[in-house]
């Protein structure tokens, strides 16, 4: 039976660990000709340069060939072709599909239509599982483990799909502690807190972004977007609170690392970049190894 990666919860803890192991292997030796003679369809129904380049780099390092489109303007979707028909056709051509789509659930549907594996590279505000796996890999690599991690999530915890998926994935590991730092209107949704309650996992909620980060092993920053506020005054009040600068890192643990899914706007001051605790650019590079690992795992190449 073919394997897909649509939602982070499709993978078990064992599979997360398998991906970590494979990603470490690809980091040691990124160029492996495992996809030689194989065709990967890269279907971006919505532009996402960062994710697309990461995937296409991963595919190229695996020796695979890429067909597809980078934005919907150059796809048959603009002529009114249904997603069903596009996927049906492409699944006859290629060996695996990587797809990004603006509508939620599009990837799950594509996986049902397709005979070949589908990798979800983001479906609207729903899921972006390869991001979560590269986040896990970055945590494992910098902390040496995924157990006993004190994870601080900062910024927009309400709409940010990356923090939701990371929460779900990290809750599979031993004894995590979550600290949520967000303005009242952007707090972690109740459903995710219930999930933690059900699993007996500790979490704390804060509005202030202060020296409490001295406890952190990982600080996961996200952007507070103006569009999320119905009241512009509310936005003005909080817009400068959830910004991390270098001085704030003074009393943090030596092992702490700053992660961010990127692109960053102003939520991490540029003076943090030179601090060895900043890890977001390495995190992005880890995405290439993690995506090589995901492709190799789904296609049973390793």
């Amino acid at each position, binding site marked *: 039976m073919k394997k897909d990666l649509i939602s982070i919860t499709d993978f078990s803890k064992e599979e997360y660990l398998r991906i970590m192991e494979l990603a470490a292997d690809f980091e040691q030796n990124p160029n492996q000709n495992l996809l030689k003679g194989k065709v990967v369809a890269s279907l971006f129904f919505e532009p996402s340069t960062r994710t697309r380049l990461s995937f296409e780099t991963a595919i190229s390092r695996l020796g695979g060939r890429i067909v597809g489109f980078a934005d919907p303007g150059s796809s048959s979707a603009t002529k009114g072709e249904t997603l*069903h028909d596009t996927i049906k056709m492409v699944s006859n051509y290629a060996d695996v599909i990587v797809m990004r789509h603006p*509508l*939620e*659930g599009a990837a799950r*549907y594509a996986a049902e239509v397709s005979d070949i594996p589908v990798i979800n590279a983001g479906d609207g505000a*729903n*899921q972006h599982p390869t991001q979560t796996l590269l986040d896990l890999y970055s945590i494992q690599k910098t902390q040496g483990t995924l157990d006993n991690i004190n994870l601080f999530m900062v910024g927009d915890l309400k709409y940010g799909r990356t923090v939701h998926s990371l929460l779900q994935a990290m809750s599979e590991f031993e004894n995590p502690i979550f600290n949520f730092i967000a303005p009242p209107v952007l707090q972690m949704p109740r*459903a995710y807190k219930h999930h933690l309650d059900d699993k007996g996992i500790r979490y704390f909620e804060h509005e202030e972004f202060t020296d409490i980060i001295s406890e952190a092993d990982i600080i996961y920053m996200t952007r507070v977007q103006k569009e999320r506020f119905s009241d512009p005054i509310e936005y003005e009040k909080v817009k400068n609170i959830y910004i991390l600068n270098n001085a704030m890192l003074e009393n943090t643990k030596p092992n702490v690392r700053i992660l961010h899914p990127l692109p960053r706007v102003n939520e991490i001051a540029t003076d943090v970049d030179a601090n060895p605790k900043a890890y977001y650019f390495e995190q992005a590079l880890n995405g290439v190894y993690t995506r090589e690992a995901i492709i190799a795992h789904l296609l049973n190449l390793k």
Partner: protein
Amino acid sequence: MEMKDNMKKKLKLKVSAIKDGTVIDHIPAKSLFKVISILGLDQIENQITFGTNLDSAKLGGKAIIKVTGKFFEDNEINKIALIAPHAKLNIIRDYEVVEKKIVETPEKIRGIVKCFNPKCITNNETITTCFKVISDEPIALKCRYCEKITTEDQIRMV
């Protein structure tokens, strides 16, 4: 008292008795036609009688359907759980009630309900919806596709 009993009998008889078949009682009056449509009763040849806006202390206006010669499978009848959760079935053979059934909310709902999320692929392309029932009182349905939860007040039929 006697008067009332007589009235009740008369009321009952407004929808005539059947010899063999199924009586579906305690349907909220507003859901009658949806129930008919979900069960495909508008597509079959059987004799069907129904009454609606009948007095009911519990539902404040109930409907009843009697279908001659039709016996529903559980998975068929459970489809109406979303809109008539308190419906009761009487299985009639030779004018006698031989079995009573209640409707049970199924674990999965295919078709029938729309996902409330306008950005869900099922609302943008011709796809049969599919939900996992994560709570039945009140109803909460998790979309197989967009993973969002449609709650009771958001439920719209396909």
